[in-house]
């Protein structure tokens, strides 16, 4: 996206790397002395944290209840004949749910944001509806939306609509709720593009729609990628709420294990699996923010 950005005149970003502190883990530490200090302070902090857990009166009980390797392995692979299901297999359902939800959210949220940003008097009733939608789904707790869809729609006994798998209702609820949030993110992005950009595009003969498509949206979307990814990290974890519909996703599988075997190490497994999913995306977001910062500095210089 750098190439078509009007704010990046093509200077090498690297020449500005030393100008300020970035969000990267070690980017601000320079030289051997800094590396030494950071190593020592890291060891001290980690040792202090470890001491709290290892020296506490209930350290052994804590370890046995939450960090038992045997229980972690058993819950990871599962054994239905013993009464519990694989947490490792169940996370696949979470992954599928958020992949589908993310695509739908991107589309629905953009649609809502464009309606709310529209100015035509004929669109007034739709704008009111869109505003009401955002108010409603941002205000109602997600778990209630999941519940209402997952139990309510099947209770209607409609053909097809009422006979979908639980995961479908879960994804619908996630899409409805998250689109309300993400549409506001889009709106912030659309507002961040200066009106002069539209004016310039229109003066070049582009229609309103073409100007939106080729001038406004690319800049708006680039500005909101970090907050968008932030919402998606949150979405990945919230797929666990779909378990309330009875479907066995990772968190529910962990919960079944703990209720069956009376050991909570299964939740540790679920937590690790969610971390494996979210941390790469979090680091990727950091990199995008850093790149954007450099570009802004370049533009300002």
């Amino acid at each position, binding site marked *: 996206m750098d190439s078509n950005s009007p704010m990046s005149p093509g200077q090498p970003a690297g020449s500005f790397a030393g100008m300020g502190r970035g969000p990267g883990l070690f980017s601000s530490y320079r030289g051997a002395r800094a590396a030494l200090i950071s190593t020592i302070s890291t060891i001290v902090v980690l040792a202090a944290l470890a001491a709290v857990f290892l020296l506490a*009166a*209930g350290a052994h*009980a*804590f370890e046995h*209840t939450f960090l038992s390797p045997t229980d972690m392995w058993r819950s990871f692979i599962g054994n*239905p*004949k*013993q*009464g*519990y*299901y694989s947490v490792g297999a169940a996370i696949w359902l979470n992954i599928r749910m958020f992949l589908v939800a993310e695509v739908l959210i991107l589309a629905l949220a953009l649609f809502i944001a464009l309606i709310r940003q529209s100015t035509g008097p004929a669109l007034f009733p739709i704008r009111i509806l869109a505003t009401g939608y955002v108010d409603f789904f941002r205000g109602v707790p997600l778990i209630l939306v999941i519940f209402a869809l997952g*139990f309510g729609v*099947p*209770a209607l*006994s409609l053909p097809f609509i009422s006979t979908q798998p*639980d995961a479908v209702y879960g994804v619908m609820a996630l899409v409805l709720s998250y689109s309300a949030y993400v549409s506001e993110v889009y709106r912030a992005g659309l507002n961040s593009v200066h009106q002069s950009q539209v004016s310039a595009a229109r003066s070049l003969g582009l229609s309103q729609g073409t100007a939106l498509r080729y001038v406004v949206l690319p800049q708006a979307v680039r500005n909101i990628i970090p907050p968008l990814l932030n919402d998606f990290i949150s979405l990945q974890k919230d797929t666990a709420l779909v378990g*309330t*519909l*009875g*479907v*066995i996703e990772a968190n*529910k599988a962990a*919960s*079944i294990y*703990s*209720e*069956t075997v*009376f050991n909570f190490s299964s939740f540790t497994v679920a937590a690790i699996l969610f971390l494996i999913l979210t941390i790469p995306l979090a680091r990727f977001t950091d990199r995008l923010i850093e790149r954007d910062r450099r570009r802004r500095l370049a533009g300002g210089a």
Partner: protein
Amino acid sequence: MGWVGMRRSLAAAGAVIVLCGAVAACGSSGGGNGGSTASASATSCSKSGIQHLLYKQGVLTVATDNPAYPPWFIKNTPSNGKGYESAVAYAIAAKLGFPKSKVVWVHEPFNKAIIPGPKAFDFDINEVSVTPQRAQVVTFSNSYYPVQQAIVARKGTPIVTKHSPAQLKTYLYGDQNGTTGLTYITTKIQPTKQPKVFDTLAEAGAALEAGRIDALVTDTPTAQYMAGYQLKHPQTVLVAQFPTVGEHYGLVFKKGNPLVTCVNKAIASLQSDGGLTALQKKYLGIYLKFPTIQP
């Protein structure tokens, strides 16, 4: 009510475990009642021989929850001798040599009855399922009622008539997390489709009514109550019950209370002379009438 008893059976056991994690001394709180030691169980079980073991000398103090539900108690009045558990308590008292007038009833909330510590009663009778986890913090008598698991399904659906062991595997089940019913589904029925697992039994019931699951499995008293009174849109039925897998109700004593030896003798005597069976026929006939099938 039965379903209250069922929810007690395992959900609360989890709470005990959590308590055990938090309280280091949990499970080692054994010892005698009122200064006596466990070796006192060698004492004779005559009325005079057990006096020093009683919470209050001269009377047998029996606890249950308030309110207490039918068919275990009738009209929430444990002292009327009606209802299965009230009748069993009086029958045991009689075997120990206490006439009806020497039995004192006290109220004890369920959760208080199964946590460690001193008890303000000799024993508690409250549809408490015996579990190894609970047995670490209180002492249980032998069984006075074997718990069976039963199937609840919508009226007119295939499972109502087709429930051979092979057919049972083909249905979609749902149940509350952490219950013996769910364990029965996964370990005994072993269905081909993953069951749905809910946080409450009410959600499993709603899923059954909405047609999201074919059947749920829970203990017979709960199943009878759900099919008879709770799930009516559409109508549901108790299809059949399974043979007991050893789950049973036991009387609750303070951990290590030697009185349990004498009460177990009384229960054994009631089993051999047909006393328990007669009381089950009289008060729990609504449960006995359901057919028993193999998983």
